């Protein structure tokens, strides 16, 4: 029984990391039809931001709380830069964006190597996140629990933003009809840029969160980008609800397969499950007659 709960928690934990990584992709892919392979490198930039902040601030607890908004800003700024210089010319040309952003990802990885060196760097977790928490049925890692809370907060925050704010209305309007949004007075370019800022900022936050689970290296993002895309596609493109369900579903599946096989076989098994699922339901978990973000 304990082992079952432990696996379930491992699934939730993995799911929450995937969710943080996939939320931003769901936004940018849903709105602009852009396949951003550099999204993983925005996570990496967020992780290095945490490293830099900790080198400056020193205290691990304080640096975590400075790193989360700083990672958001760094990820967001990189996203806006990419959008403004390259991607705005390639909306709804997914294959072109895939190639271009893959190139950008390689450049960013090399840049990280040049600045921080090839070996991984360590970011210290604050003392209160280094132990375990007793949940009665099982002991869980405080850091993993923190990431689950962080990802739930990110989903709720994003949901509130999309549902209640003027920017959220502009984003949803632009997703549903770009031409109509323009002709009622919405600057869809400015909206796209803000969407990219928020989506890439979330990747930065995910990167900061990942420093709590392991060391930080130039290829940190590449480990997550494919899984994050699986989440977005399985959830239904542009669907935040679907993204949440797919992230936790895939996380749990991966953890369950890992329990009964090995990590590599589990990856293969999850991929097979997603391929079979998409054969039966190509539109993802949520069918969308009109693409919707909430």
């Amino acid at each position, binding site marked *: 029984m304990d082992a079952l709960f432990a696996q379930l928690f491992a699934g939730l934990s993995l799911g929450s990391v995937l969710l943080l990584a996939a939320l931003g992709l769901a936004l940018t892919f849903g709105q602009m039809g852009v396949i951003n392979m550099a999204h993983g490198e925005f996570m990496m930039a967020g992780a290095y931001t945490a490293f830099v902040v900790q080198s400056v601030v020193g205290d691990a607890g304080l640096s975590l709380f400075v790193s989360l908004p700083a990672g958001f800003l760094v990820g967001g700024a990189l996203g806006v830069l990419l959008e403004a210089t390259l991607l705005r010319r390639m909306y709804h040309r997914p294959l072109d964006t895939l190639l271009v952003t893959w190139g950008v990802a390689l450049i960013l990885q090399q840049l990280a190597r040049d600045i921080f060196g090839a070996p991984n760097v360590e970011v210290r977790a604050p003392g209160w996140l280094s132990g375990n928490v007793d949940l009665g049925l099982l002991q869980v890692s405080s850091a993993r629990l923190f990431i689950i809370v962080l990802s739930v907060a990110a989903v709720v925050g994003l949901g509130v933003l999309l549902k209640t704010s003027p920017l959220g209305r502009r984003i949803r309007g632009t997703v549903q009809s770009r031409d*109509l949004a323009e002709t*009622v007075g*919405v600057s869809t370019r400015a909206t796209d840029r803000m969407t990219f800022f928020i989506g890439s900022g979330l990747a930065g936050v995910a990167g900061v969160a990942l420093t709590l689970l392991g060391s930080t290296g130039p290829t940190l993002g590449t480990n997550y980008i494919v899984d994050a895309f699986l989440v977005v596609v399985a959830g239904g493109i542009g669907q935040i609800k679907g993204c949440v369900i797919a992230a936790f579903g895939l996380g749990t599946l991966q953890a369950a397969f890992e329990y009964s096989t090995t990590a590599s076989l589990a990856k293969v098994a999850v991929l097979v499950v997603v391929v079979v699922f998409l054969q039966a339901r190509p539109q993802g978990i949520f069918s969308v007659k009109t693409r919707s973000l909430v």
Partner: protein
Amino acid sequence: MLELDDLHVGYGRTTVVHGATVHVPEGGITAVMGHNGAGKTTLLRAAVGLLAPSRGRVLLDGDDVTRLRPHRRVRRGLAYVPQGQQSFPQLTTAENLQLVADTRPRGRARTDELLDLFPALREVMSRKAGLLSGGQRQQLAIARALITEPRVLILDEPTEGIQPSVVAQIERTIADLTSGDDLSVLLVEQHIGFALSVADRYYVLASGRVTSSGDGGDDSHATVRAAMAI
């Protein structure tokens, strides 16, 4: 007010509108009529900035706005109600209106005024626009356009697929709105009777060219019918 000057517009290499010139003066209603495929909607899409003309200019108050993006034209007083009662289907009626009201300093107050003009919308404020009837969606589309307090309102076939009682209401609303000199309307219609009953002047478009134009007087029906060869 709004001048479409020698516009050539198309899609890719196909030109649909060949040098159309349409003047919408201050106040009143200007109708553009023509059969399906005559280039009416293409002309309007160029007027609002959704299509870039290969030749010709769009002038608003004498200023060349041909290269201006659609939302900037809206700020200069141009509003557009596209064909087919288009709305943001997953947004509620209230959100459809709010989306536009957000962009205007007087948006909220203006929304209240427009809900008085279209009271039927008050009953469906929390319903998703995709679930409204055609008539409700058309009223929503017109209200949404009017929130921006335009000086030129462009209507693309506002009566298409709408029941007669709602058509009558739309007709009354358009007539009311244009009774002063504050608002000019550019109306595109296939429904000649409706267009000429409200229009002060008209243009007939055939194969992307203006083939006839004049004032909406008593003899205009015969002239338009002849120009459209019906």
